[in-house]
């Protein structure tokens, strides 16, 4: 069985490790920040570029490149925002850092802020993390008392404050421009790109970097070991470790940190997570948070990787990194692996997800606002026993008309589950018209 390699979660679950600053300092905390503030920001940036790190928030965009796009000519202040909204269904990794090792995030953020010369930094945390926000605020005060943030950090002449900003239960605040609007005190309506690329026109119309919690923590370790050394972890173009969150029908769900590409889906599910429940077989896996396209248990994935090598994989063979799930027509997204065994009613599973997207659309663009409601209504009607011939095609047609026609990627996030569920499980959808009418008290998406 492949070994876990815990970099980000090294101490999180260690017995006796506490989240206060004394414990963090005893474990070598803030040493890298001390080193960083004596360096040239450009040198730090080069290390981040060399590390090859890609963002852990969902899109996998190279972090060094994102930082390079910062508009420095405008002369406007620069802001750094940590995206701690963690609201993609199936994802629960950032929470581990926030609740168990908050200073790691703060150190990663202050190094990043110093590197991009940010005037101020924010942590945008989802509203349901009541305790998480308090933990971070306490940690910030501890760090301020020791001059790791605030005025003239460690005598470097660089000043930067860090503010925790709580959301209030809206998934769309995870989308970076929605987040920015929310932070400005408005409805979180995502902005259109171009021109509103955050690195050019972000919060307060100033250049802004938005990065995920796990990404920013990694910056600390990149600087610690050096970009080139970090790049040796994982596989080319997929460097470092990733924290995978496994949920659903496995014996040992949880979060597991592995070098990218060094573990397959099969090893993850069958070895690390203790396999499926006795007597069950696999039906489907969503590999990267609920927005990622579903993979069917008996699919074969064939094609060519970026480097030209051909592959022919079963679902179990897929290496867990950025590029492989993408090569299989899905994505590693936020790292949330949701497992469904043969007891799962696939139409109800989609209906459950449709209810999520219908609840969370911000309502700004018509195809998304109306489309997600239609898709929800269709699958709900099906689950309530009023399935009609052609429902599968109807669902596909709605999803296809959302995709690519919206302001933000939520449109795709809502369309992809529908497209993939319907295409890959067409028989399940068609069989539904023969099901008897049911009336369920709790609604339509209850699964069990």
């Amino acid at each position: 069985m492949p070994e876990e390699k815990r970099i980000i979660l090294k101490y999180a679950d260690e017995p006796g490790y506490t989240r206060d600053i004394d414990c963090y300092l005893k474990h070598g905390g803030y040493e890298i920040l001390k080193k960083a503030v004596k360096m040239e920001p450009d040198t730090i940036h080069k290390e981040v570029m060399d590390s090859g790190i890609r963002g852990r928030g969902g899109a996998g965009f190279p972090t060094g490149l994102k930082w390079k796009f910062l508009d420095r000519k405008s002369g406007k202040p620069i802001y750094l925002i940590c995206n701690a909204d963690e609201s993609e269904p199936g994802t629960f990794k950032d929470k581990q850092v926030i609740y168990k090792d908050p200073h790691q995030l703060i150190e990663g953020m202050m190094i990043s802020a110093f590197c991009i010369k940010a005037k101020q930094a924010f942590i945008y945390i989802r509203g349901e993390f009541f305790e998480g926000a308090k933990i971070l605020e306490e940690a910030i005060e501890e760090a301020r008392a020791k001059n790791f943030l605030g005025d003239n950090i460690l005598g470097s002449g660089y000043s930067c404050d860090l503010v925790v900003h709580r959301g209030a239960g809206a998934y769309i605040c995870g989308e970076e421009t929605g987040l920015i609007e929310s932070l400005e005190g408005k409805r979180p309506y995502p902005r259109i790109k171009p021109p509103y690329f955050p690195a050019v026109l972000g919060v307060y119309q100033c250049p802004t970097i938005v990065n995920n919690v796990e990404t920013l923590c990694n910056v600390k370790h990149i600087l610690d070991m050096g970009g080139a050394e970090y790049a040796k972890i994982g596989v080319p173009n997929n460097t470092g470790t990733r924290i995978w969150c496994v949920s659903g029908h496995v014996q040992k769900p949880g979060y597991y940190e592995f070098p990218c590409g060094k573990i397959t889906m099969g090893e993850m599910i069958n070895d690390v997570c203790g396999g499926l429940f006795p007597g069950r077989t696999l039906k489907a896996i969503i590999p990267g948070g609920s927005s990622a396209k579903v993979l069917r248990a008996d699919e074969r994935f064939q094609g060519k990787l970026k480097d030209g090598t051909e592959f022919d994989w079963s679902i179990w063979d897929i290496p867990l990194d950025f590029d492989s799930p993408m090569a299989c027509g899905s994505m590693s997204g936020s790292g949330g692996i949701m497992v469904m065994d043969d007891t799962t009613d696939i139409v109800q599973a989609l209906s459950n997800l449709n209810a999520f997207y219908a609840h969370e659309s911000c309502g700004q663009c018509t195809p998304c606002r109306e489309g997600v409601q239609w898709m929800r209504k269709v699958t709900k009607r099906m689950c309530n026993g009023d399935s009609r011939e052609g429902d599968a095609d109807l669902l596909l047609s709605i999803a296809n008309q959302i995709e690519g026609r919206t302001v933000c990627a939520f449109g795709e996030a809502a369309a992809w589950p529908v497209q993939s569920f319907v295409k890959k499980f067409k028989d399940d959808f068609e069989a539904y018209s023969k099901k008897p009418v049911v009336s369920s008290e709790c609604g339509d998406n209850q699964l069990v």
Partner: protein
Amino acid sequence: MELSPELIKKIDARVEKYPTKRSAVLPLLHMIQEELRYIPDEAIEWVAHRLELEPMQVYEVVTFYPMLKRTPMGKKHVRVCRTLACALRGSYQVCKAIQEELGVELDHTTEDGEYSLEFMECLASCGTAPVVMVNEEHYDNVDVEKAREICRGLKK
């Protein structure tokens, strides 16, 4: 609407932290809701005045975010996650059990103002599904039995 002097102090300190006053809308609404358990009309006016905004600019925020409430929530606000990972592990049954135990309907508050029950979307704890929150407290691996136990605890 009376806000305590401590709250006013906290509000003043919070507004200071942002480059623009408007950024403080959400935090102020959170603070007020913590004290009053909802956002009344006067609070919208008050926040608008404090941050030099039009009441509409605060109202549109209040009506967008699911966690901001226009009517008082019960003293014990129970939230059950209903999204896929939790549903696969039985969260809808858990919700039913809670309705029975507490005599509260989904998306309602009991008349005596004791309990509110709500479905939530993924609470970022899918590995310990199903998950339930009571006020700010979080419970993992809540099966029907554990849900009933939690409810009995609330009634004491």
